[in-house]
């Protein structure tokens, strides 16, 4: 079973909105909202958080995302109240970015620790903003074992769902893949980084991969693009 998620927010509408976005990208992940107080006021509710935690528990663990300080406290208390507090983790991550990254990792079958890590890496700030930033990580052009260029023919380009599919198709593939569009580059596994490229229908994207399965990585992405992301 997949790791589940709980979105703890001061607002019911906010938590449900995050669940909606996440559901599009990770349809098989159990995500539940715990937002607002029972009377509809803003605030976080311990009982609702505990209930969402139970509902998201598949036996593989649960990751909780929160919006503001006291939501973190409520989330932590709900975890401490579990029969086994080691089965759930409150992630220190931005709410939307973290939830999306965690959901994609969970959808890909990753374990509790890896899903938490995915959420906590999703700070947005660490995304490389240009090709230079990627090179700065120690990859020179000679290191790329495989590269190719593709034209996006799907309607929405590298929007949320296609970006999530892109990240998912690389699950378990041993390769680091960089996607570039114009001057901008992003890690292909970073849903937000890929969305940030702003690649639209008709745009050319270039892919560079390193690692033992670099060829496989590019083949999978090429197939996905050629299938128009199953739109």
């Amino acid at each position: 079973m997949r790791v589940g998620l709980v979105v703890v927010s001061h607002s019911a509408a906010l938590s449900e909105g995050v669940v909606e976005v996440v559901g599009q990208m990770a349809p098989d992940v159990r995500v539940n909202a715990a937002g607002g107080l029972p009377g509809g006021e803003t605030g976080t509710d311990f009982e609702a958080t505990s209930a969402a935690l139970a509902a998201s528990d598949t036996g593989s663990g649960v990751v909780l995302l929160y919006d503001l300080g006291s939501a973190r406290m409520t989330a932590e208390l709900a975890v401490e109240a579990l029969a086994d507090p080691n089965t759930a983790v409150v992630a220190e991550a931005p709410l939307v970015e973290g939830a999306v990254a965690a959901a994609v990792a969970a959808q890909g079958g990753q374990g509790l620790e890896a899903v938490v890590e995915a959420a906590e890496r999703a700070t947005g700030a660490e995304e490389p903003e240009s090709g230079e930033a990627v090179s700065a990580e120690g990859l020179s052009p000679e290191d790329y074992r495989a590269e190719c260029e593709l034209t996006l023919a799907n309607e929405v380009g590298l929007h949320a769902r296609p970006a999530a599919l892109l990240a998912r198709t690389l699950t378990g593939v041993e390769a680091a893949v960089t996607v570039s569009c114009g001057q901008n580059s992003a890690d292909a596994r970073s849903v937000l980084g890929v969305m940030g490229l702003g690649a639209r229908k008709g745009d050319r994207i270039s892919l560079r991969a390193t690692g033992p399965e670099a060829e496989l990585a590019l083949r999978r992405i090429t197939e996905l693009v050629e299938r128009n992301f199953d739109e």
Partner: protein
Amino acid sequence: MVCTRQHVIAAMRGAVRAVSECRDELVELDRAIGDGDHGENMERGFLAVDTQLRLASPETPAAVLKTTATSLISSVGGAAGPLFGTAFLRAATAAGERETLDGAAVAALLRAALDGVTARGRAERGDKTMVDALAAAVEAAERAADEGAGPTGVLRSAATAADSGARETIPLVARKGRASYLGERGAGHLDPGARSVALLLHAFAETGGEQ
């Protein structure tokens, strides 16, 4: 010179009355640097404590504290619910299976509560939070216990020190919680959370020790 289950229940009932009496004062304090709901939230929380203590009839000091904690967590909301809830929860854990609490045990409970609040809220002394009152209270409680004070003596020392700790928050600029959004403008106001800690400790000292 020990504190029994009945004393702890009496102390919690004393807190219920004290919070209701000080509701408006807490509202005013919170209106100045927060969102003005602290008095209302605390009153609702302690009314829930009152109800649950009647329903649950807890059998040990720890059980009374745990009932208090869960009632607060479920009904206070905001940051105060989890923070005060954690304080009582950790105190309950520290009380363990004990049937009675002496002065040293009461000081140990307060220390456990402080550690819980500090960890939960990630606040330090000087951040202009309830920690400022509680940390001062714990130090005074431990000193009193070392000098051989019983539960009431320990709680009285703690309450007096909490008053000073709370007053010391007045000139501070908040570094945690909603008041921190105000920056310099928050200086000059007493922190409502610190005030709540002091008033709870006074209520415990008046009602909870050996009578």
